[in-house]
């Protein structure tokens, strides 16, 4: 895909998705206080 080996697409895409999922989870669960 994109002229790249599968491992590159999987590694870079996978890590990016994991990061987005983690930050989404943080946004949904963070309450904070002031």
């Amino acid at each position: 895909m994109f002229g790249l080996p599968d491992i590159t697409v999987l590694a870079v895409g996978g890590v990016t998705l994991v990061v987005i999922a983690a930050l989404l989870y943080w946004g949904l669960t963070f309450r904070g206080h002031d």
Partner: protein
Amino acid sequence: MAADFITIAVIVIYFLAMLGIGAWASRKIKNTEDYLVAGRQLGFWVFILLMIGTVASGMSLLGVSGLGFKAGWPTIWEQIFVPLSIGFCIIFFGVKLHNVAKTAGYITVQDYLAHRYESPTALRSLSAVAGVIVSLIYLVGQYSAIAIVLMWLFAIPLWLALVIATLITTIYTAIGGLYAVAWASLIQSVILIIGVLIMAPIIIFYAGGFDHINTYLAGVNPNLVMPWMPSGTFGIPYVVSFAVLLMVGLACAPHVINNVLAIKDVKYFKWAPLVAFLIYGVAMFLLKFTGFAGAVMVKEGVFTLPNVPNAGDFVILYGIQNSLPVMALWAVFAVIVLAAVMSTTDRLMLTIGAMCSWDIYKKVLKPDADDKTVLLLSKIVVILSALFTMVLAINPPEMLAILIWMGIGVMLSTFAIPLLAGLYWRGATREGALAAMSLGLVSSLTFGMLNYIKASVLGIDFGTIPLHFSAYSFIIAIFAMIIVSLLTKKTTDKVLDETQTGWFISK
């Protein structure tokens, strides 16, 4: 190339806009708190774009594409972990620091360290001095980047490029403090993001498209399209240490972390990590692809880079020059690069000013100094730090990225452990923090220098070590903190409770 009238006009308008922001912001400055933490009144978007602007530096445009040009896909990880550093800073440092700072009145992160470790003089001084050293290293890289752009655009000598860049940035930072820096960053970050979103696809298309670029790189060297190199620099161990370096090192950098003290409402921290990651991440990926496109164009003979040691840092500039044969657009692109660099430079100078005037002068040397004197000293230090780094930047290093990483590596080794242990481990002591910070600073400066000059010491070849040099000094700092803390007297429970120390992010 030499600039025409429109080019000069575009650059001059941009510079005047920055000076205008400085003049406007200066009217809001009533005291040191206004100057250094913008009266703790930053809103959601100003904060996000300030964070992006602070992290997005000379490396983001010139260095990122330069590294992509040189080493291909194995360097792609900086596109994930640099944007993630903003989220790491907010989640692991920002929430707690902000909550404590509001009641304790912190101006700088050194205020927190002095409070948490009950060390109003020793740790505050050491951390301020270390902060000044690492900020200066980082600042040299930024001024080198500004000079590269101005030299390219106006065909002027390096010294003149440096003088122009220094003068403009210093004036608006010195007069407007964090208000000016934050609002300038808002504009600079918007220019940077929109500019990259428009210009990067044009360069990639001009080079033959994304698929062609990757296929061509794979034909030159199959490792250039792999996610890591088989061994050595950008091998898997190096990539892991590189990820930690960028994510944690940038997150705890004094000029980045101090921003969390200036936010108006802690609720902004809810979505700021994701929003910052998505916006900055897209721009960073596009920049790296631009470097790949430049590599293909150079190899195909579309253009040649100048015969200078840091030629890779010029690749995006020459890519633009060839893909968009309209000089006025080059000026717009030069403004984009200048915006990226200046948004970091101004914040760094202000941070150095804060550490010298607030942490060293007001809190250690002369506690009875009045606010007016501290404010004046902040401004003087901003100017002096600019002049000092301008002189250092006259001889730029071979690759911009290397100098800037060295700065981040020293930040990681010096600040990460005292901050993380201070916020989360009730067993961390003053002596442990002093040991971790001083050993982290000295070892990272030593390893960084040995790595840079590729020296061989005690049978170790520092030019080919498998991890980034900062990983070793980071580990030394961890051990120093744990061992010394276990052997020394604990911080009082009163202070630990006041600083909300414990294994939680937010109660």
